[in-house]
């Protein structure tokens, strides 16, 4: 089976879209990592506050 002529260009055009999606996926992954880190910090802050409250009592 032979590929139609200009198949490379057509594939390149669809790859551009795929690359855009992949870049966005990478950005989302970075953001998720940052959110995870922030959630951990918030949890630590909340636990510290809880421990302080218990000590005060």
């Amino acid at each position, binding site marked *: 089976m032979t590929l*139609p002529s200009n198949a490379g*260009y*057509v594939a390149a*055009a669809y790859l*551009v879209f795929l690359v855009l999606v992949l870049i966005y996926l990478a950005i989302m992954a970075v953001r998720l990592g940052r959110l995870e880190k922030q959630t951990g*910090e*918030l949890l630590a*802050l*909340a636990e510290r*506050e809880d421990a302080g409250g218990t000590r005060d009592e």
Partner: protein
Amino acid sequence: MVTYGKGLRPLAILTVLVLGGGIALALFYAPMDADQGFRQKIFYIHVPMAIVAMGGFIAGGIAGIMYLRTEDSKWDLRSYTWIHHALILALGALITGSIWAKTSWGHWWVWDEPTLVSFLIVFLLYCTYQPLRFSIEDREKQSRYAAVFAITAGAFVPLNFMAVRMAQSLSHPRVFATSNGGLPLKMQIAFYVMLAGMTLFFITLTKFEMASKNTRAQMGALRRRLGGEDGPARRSAAPALPTATEAGTA
């Protein structure tokens, strides 16, 4: 409390299905164009990206009007996000258009073609949106000036589009021909499914972006409430969002 991520999961699934189906239809169902041959398949991705990008710019302008009317920061966020994502799709449309031009005309870019140059002008115009926002430190002024920009530039988009349609095109093809028939039915089906998929893709990404920004704002508020350090204040082009408490008291 405003939640931007509501319905994101079904929307994302629908986007994957429609866009995936659209690509399959474009490549395997739509017939080969008699004149263009296989390279015509580029239009199923290029044209929806260009149309959704222009729609996003116009929607950004409408959100700008809503912001000036209500001064509600959620409209500023919508305007910012819609324009931001429309710009990314416009870049995709420019690249895929260039690829088509190379295979069809033998050149990556043709400067005497009104459709190409006018789209480039719109793209470059919107490239100044982010730097404009970033250059204004006062958050209220930033939102207001950005809204004015979004409205003015948003009004320019359909005017530009109509002017180009009325001008005599040298060689850029018209997908929706006004005479001598348009696309055959099978091509139309593939095209409209791709257009719907690209629209859903745009909505999903913008919803995700808004939910992400809102979550970060809420996290910051929670951190302040728990007595944590906020970190150094950073200038940003993105809109400042009210937290749940601020929104409740406003």
